[in-house]
């Protein structure tokens, strides 16, 4: 496990060139950087592994995989998350009783996933191996569709499941456990921020 607490201004300076829409967005950090998981795993409520339809990563059993130079189609992720009870839907708005995830894709396939906040306060994105952030709109982390741009492209699909489906899987318990962990992390982070300001 490698958790990295870095000053907010440093993390923001690193993210703005990569995700330019964040510069004018309402967002905040939710957790320190952690390379044990990435956005796909986070959308599936896992924080101990990386998920991707490839043999080096965890993926849903029995579903097709891709090799690294090949694109990862959105359909693969829809099929995968269907095993957790998710189904495609049109609306990105918060619906009481439903949990939603969004799939982002660029010209070569899926790039990112975000999960809707449990109470609809926005979307929680794990930025690769960097921090988790809470952003108000899905457009806040959108970017160029070109694979050369190193951005997430655009939102391609929304999936939703009922809270009842979430209760049937261990996901909900993991979500609460990690919400508590992130709360403790934020307290520690705030203390570090104060210390860094004093040191400066």
């Amino acid at each position, binding site marked *: *496990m*490698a958790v990295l607490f870095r000053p907010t201004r440093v993390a923001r300076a*690193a*993210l703005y060139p*990569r*995700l330019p829409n964040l510069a004018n967005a309402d967002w905040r950090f939710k957790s320190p*950087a952690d*390379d*044990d998981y*990435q*956005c*796909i*795993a986070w959308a599936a409520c896992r924080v*101990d*592994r*990386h*998920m*991707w339809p*490839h*043999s*080096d*990563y*965890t*993926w849903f059993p029995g579903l097709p995989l891709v090799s*690294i*130079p*090949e*694109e*990862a189609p959105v359909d693969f992720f829809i099929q995968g998350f269907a095993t957790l009870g998710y189904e495609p839907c049109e609306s990105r708005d918060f619906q009481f009783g439903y949990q939603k995830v969004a799939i982002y894709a660029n010209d*070569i*396939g*899926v*790039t*990112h*996933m975000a999960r809707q906040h449990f109470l609809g306060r926005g979307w929680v994105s*794990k*930025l*690769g*191996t*960097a921090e988790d952030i809470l952003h108000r709109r899905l457009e806040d982390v959108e970017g160029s569709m070109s*694979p050369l741009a*190193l951005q997430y492209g655009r939102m391609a699909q929304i999936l939703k499941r009922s809270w009842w489906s979430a209760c049937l899987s261990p996901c909900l318990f993991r979500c609460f456990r990690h919400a508590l962990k992130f709360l403790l992390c934020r307290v520690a982070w705030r203390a570090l921020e104060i210390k860094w300001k004093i040191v400066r």
Partner: protein
Amino acid sequence: MITYSQPEVAEVVASKDEWFVLPPLPAKPVCTTACEAEVKEWFTKDQINNYLRDLAWYMSHHPAPVAANLPTLADRFREQAEKWQNETQHLSSPIQKAAHPSYQAVLGMAAENKQEIIRLLIRDLQQNRRMWFWALSYLTQDNPIKPADAGKIDKMIDAWTTWGKDKGIA
């Protein structure tokens, strides 16, 4: 009298611009070839001796000045690895990460010394936890990661470290 073959002369003539510029026409050429006129313009035995003598003096007074400034393979690897991490840290897609120019540059370095690059990759995996798994699989044509451990970074790093020790690389 020295006699040069035709290919030798052609090779020397072709690389003429890469050599130092010589003073005006030699007084006493030593070459006899079909391209004698062209070679005569810039080769004499005395001149070569003079240049070798100057070169030897320069090298004795400037111990390996050029080689010391050249970045080693490890330096170049570190530079590209840091650049790769900084620019792809926010990405989750292994396809996007592997397509980054720095990742490709590291793969390209394997053409110079494959064993050394594999050793550097495994060491970087241990020290900095940068995810070189696909590069290692590609370069070694092997994959020591058990299916049950796929995606779990600590166990994947352990698997590659053990693999490196078994092969005598790490």
